[in-house]
């Protein structure tokens, strides 16, 4: 891990340190005996080994051996030794210094190896954390490429998968063969490969081994993603199956009721049993007309629900005025609302909202018809709208019966009814369609009990792609 420059500095440091020690001892030469000097020399050797490792340690031990001999063993300034005791000191010094360097160097190498292993483990851990929860191939490829790039500091990394490939730091790879190529494979088949461009420094076997581990981690993540996808598909199928049977049971009841009315009315009109000018005739004809409308509404609701279920209900957003949408709905529903008093507090000066006109119409229609159905006659149904931060908050409150708190969320579920089916008509889909539409718009819908009534609330965003409604061009006055 050390660069050539710091190696040079280390050598320089060792020489300087030994020179300094030698100078210091040189001035104290007359007060110290040879044995103590030899012992003290071990200190800088230890320090140097600690910094520079085994080789530098031994080199400085040998250097010190010569300086000790030259400066501190009589006769001074020669490399010859006269006293046998000094010879022993010198020999022991050399052995101790070399052994000390060796031991320390080994320990150092051990620490370095442990550090490298820890780093590998950390990188592997980071990769597996980053890969958890990723369920699509391109995200996995992207994550892997990022991790490999940050680990290897390569010029370019490319991750190729069956359906996707991802290159870093740029999209295009260098114009030469990759320096390393590792395949991402499971026991059964090859899922892709990692391509790496790094000429300098040369890729070591350690890096290669780590990348292979990366590749096998990625293979696992890819398999997991595949399983998760097929599982969610299975879940969707199961859900839609449940929905279908629920629809069938609800539909057979709900569709037959208006059909029976129509059949009864039309057959009696046909049978000549009712005279042409009797008031019953008018009554029967309008019954057919009303029930046909009712049937149309039911079929529409079913269609919408299946669209929401299939996830294909995409709002066709345009800048719209809530007051205009609501006005249209109230106009169309005025016959149903005759027995209630409707108070509207939706200002035309509210900002425009980016919503699908027809879908929002439906939200209002369903919420209103639900409110009118349950609220007692001659009571007030109120509609308010106000701006709250980046959302428009709409409240439809009525003086109808409260809903048990535990059911407040469930009323938006499909086919969920608080009251028994035979008391109130409808498909049990209206509110869940509202929920589907509002959520597709990025808003929220909820119900709440009021002190003396009940209210639906929903929000729709005021921003479209993060931007509010654009300013209008200036109008010229008419001459």
């Amino acid at each position: 891990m050390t660069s050539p420059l710091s190696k040079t500095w280390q050598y320089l440091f060792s020489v300087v340190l030994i020179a300094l020690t030698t100078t210091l001892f040189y001035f104290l030469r007359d007060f110290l005996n040879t044995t103590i000097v030899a012992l003290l020399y071990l200190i800088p050797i230890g320090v140097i080994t600690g910094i520079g490792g085994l080789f530098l340690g031994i080199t400085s031990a040998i250097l010190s051996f010569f300086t000790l001999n030259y400066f501190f063993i009589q006769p001074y300034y020669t490399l010859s030794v006269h006293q046998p005791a000094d010879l022993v000191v010198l020999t022991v010094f050399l052995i101790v210094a070399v052994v000390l360097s060796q031991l320390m160097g080994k320990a150092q190498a051990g620490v370095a190896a442990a550090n490298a292993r820890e780093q590998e483990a950390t990188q592997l851990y980071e990769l597996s954390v980053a890969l958890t929860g990723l369920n699509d191939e391109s995200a996995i490829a992207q994550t892997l490429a990022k991790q490999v790039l940050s680990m290897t500091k390569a010029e370019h990394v490319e991750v190729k998968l069956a359906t996707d490939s991802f290159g870093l730091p740029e999209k295009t790879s260098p114009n030469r063969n990759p320096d390393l190529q590792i395949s991402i494979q499971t026991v059964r088949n090859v899922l892709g490969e990692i391509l790496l461009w790094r000429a300098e420094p040369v890729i070591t076997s350690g890096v290669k081994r780590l990348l292979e581990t990366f590749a096998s981690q990625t293979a696992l993540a890819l398999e997991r993603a595949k399983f998760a996808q097929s599982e969610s598909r299975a879940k969707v199928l199961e859900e839609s199956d449940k929905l279908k049977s629920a629809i069938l049971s609800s539909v057979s009841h709900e569709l037959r009721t208006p059909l029976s009315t129509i059949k009864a009315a039309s057959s009696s009109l046909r049978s000549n049993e009712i005279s042409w000018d009797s008031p019953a005739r008018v009554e029967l004809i309008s019954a057919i007309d009303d029930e046909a409308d009712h049937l149309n509404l039911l079929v529409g609701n079913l269609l919408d629900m299946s669209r929401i279920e299939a996830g294909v209900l995409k709002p066709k957003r345009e800048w719209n005025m809530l007051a205009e949408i609501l006005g249209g709905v109230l106009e169309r529903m005025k016959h149903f609302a005759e027995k209630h008093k409707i108070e509207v507090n939706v200002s035309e000066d509210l900002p425009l909202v980016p919503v699908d006109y027809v879908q929002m119409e439906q939200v209002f229609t369903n919420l209103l018809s639900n409110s009118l159905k349950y609220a007692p006659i001659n009571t007030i149904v109120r509609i308010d709208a106000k701006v709250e931060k980046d959302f428009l908050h709409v409240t439809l409150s009525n003086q109808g019966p409260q809903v048990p708190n535990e059911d407040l969320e469930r009323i938006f579920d499909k086919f969920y009814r608080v009251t028994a089916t035979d008391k109130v008509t409808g498909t049990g889909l209206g509110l869940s369609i509202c929920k589907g539409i509002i959520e597709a718009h990025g808003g929220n819908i909820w119900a709440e009990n009021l002190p003396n009534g009940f209210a639906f609330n929903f929000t729709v965003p005021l921003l479209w792609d993060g931007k509010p409604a654009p300013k209008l061009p200036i109008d010229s006055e008419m001459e």
Partner: protein
Amino acid sequence: MNNAPHILVIDDEPQILRALRTILTEKEFKVSIANRGEEGLNLAATQTPDVIILDLGLPDMDGVEVCKRLREWTQVPIIVLSARDNEKDKVNALDHGADDYLTKPFGIEELLARVRVSLRHSVQKQGAQSKIVKAGDLTIDLVWHIVKRGDEEIKLTGTEYKLLAYLASNHGRILTHQSILSHVWGEADADHTEYLRVYMRQLRKKLEENPERPKYVVTEPGIGYRFMADE
């Protein structure tokens, strides 16, 4: 009987054809019927009907395609029929030459009203356009650019008048957002529905007794606007 307006119905559903033929014949129209787009195009060429009622979901070709092919050589009014929830198809057909639309299931009064409007506009294409449009107590003079409620003149801005004039001169007909925007503001602004929403509110405030429940300029959800004049 020879002077009776001739209506060509192009639809593949026998029940609808049966009902329409019965009702329209009863109303003294001359009725021809085609089950397929190709057949419809041939009949349109050989019999020169006065109005065409066209279903968008035909078995052999797209209804919008039929519109386009018809518009290559004739300006005969086309009323398209389509199931609910297909605003995109309807707008597409309207932008490709259809004059009006009806959503299935529809009431017969609605159908007859559309047919009447279409016949009137086809007559106007040949002759002079009406210069004064009346709707309730509103009078719009398209020559002198004067809008009055009773005897009182209503002051409109330039853009408001342009908008109203376009709607009123096409009264009874549906006009798509795109066609209004490109006519009043220009092609470049054809996507700016927000202009339309805001100006429509201003216009309704000046024209309608109750701007929240407009009587004259009615919204066609997801498609456009229609000006309702006296028949």
